[in-house]
């Protein structure tokens, strides 16, 4: 038992050191922006204005995500945005919670239809729920930052 703790500790230490060394050398990337670009920009556009390359293929025009605060009397609707990404508030053009258009990158709930390996395949090595929550928060934070004044 003791030995396995030592091994685990060593492994974690290696991971931390290994992952931080390049980090000192360069600026950290904007995780929220990268997530946005990967999962939202195809429809909502790189600038969030709703004119992504796939928008023309949709029957409903994607929303302008830069005016969320404006349309909510100047208050950023944090909870609503989180719930829409998380899937507990369903929008027709976002698919269903069981099958969201962006895949399972923002699904903290168990995923119906996927094999047990799938979560690790989609997010190798990580405990799924905290990763998903911080990922959603990163996107919400990015959206907050692109609001028009």
């Amino acid at each position: 038992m003791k030995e396995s703790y030592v091994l685990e500790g060593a492994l974690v230490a290696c991971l931390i050191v290994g992952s931080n060394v390049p980090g000192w050398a360069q600026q950290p990337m904007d995780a929220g922006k990268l997530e946005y670009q990967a999962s939202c920009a195809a429809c909502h556009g790189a600038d969030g204005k709703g004119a992504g390359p796939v928008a023309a293929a949709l029957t409903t025009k994607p929303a302008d995500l830069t005016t969320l605060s404006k349309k909510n009397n100047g208050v950023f609707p944090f909870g609503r945005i989180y719930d829409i990404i998380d899937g507990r508030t369903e929008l027709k053009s976002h698919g269903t919670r069981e099958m969201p258009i962006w895949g399972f990158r923002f699904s903290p709930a168990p995923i119906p239809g996927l094999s047990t390996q799938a979560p690790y395949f989609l997010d190798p090595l990580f405990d799924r729920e905290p990763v998903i929550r911080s990922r959603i928060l990163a996107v919400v934070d990015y959206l907050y930052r692109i609001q028009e004044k």
Partner: protein
Amino acid sequence: MQLEYKVPPASPMRAILIALFIVVVAVLSCVDIAKAQMGAVFGKDEFINSCASCHGVTGKGNGPLAKSLTHAPADLTVIQKKNGGVFPLAFVYDVIDGRIQVMVHGSREMPVWGERYKRELKALTPRGEVSDDLAELMVRARILMLTEYLYSLQEK
């Protein structure tokens, strides 16, 4: 339970050879089965993750989002049939990846999965722990697994 039974006497050499043969066959078939199952599972997971919301779980084009699209998503089970009985592997790969297609045609109706998978990976390792080459390798593996799964969906 009674598991003992009579075996005809055989030379020890022959017995050892037979035992070896059985072990080798058993190991090989286990490896094969494991390999086949892994490929199928990963490909199917990727399909459900990336394709099923539009193309449907069965690939027939009837996902929950199909009605929100101006053009019906393609039936992915007849790709081979429509290509004279030959599965157009490179074509399917390029359509999923999308990066070459976009360079040639500009925008398209499907997300550019090659670019998307790459960004996902970068977001997962925001300090640049994964080199561009390794990221590209992993992106291609995901697309290949998808292509392999699509091949398994083809109607005869």
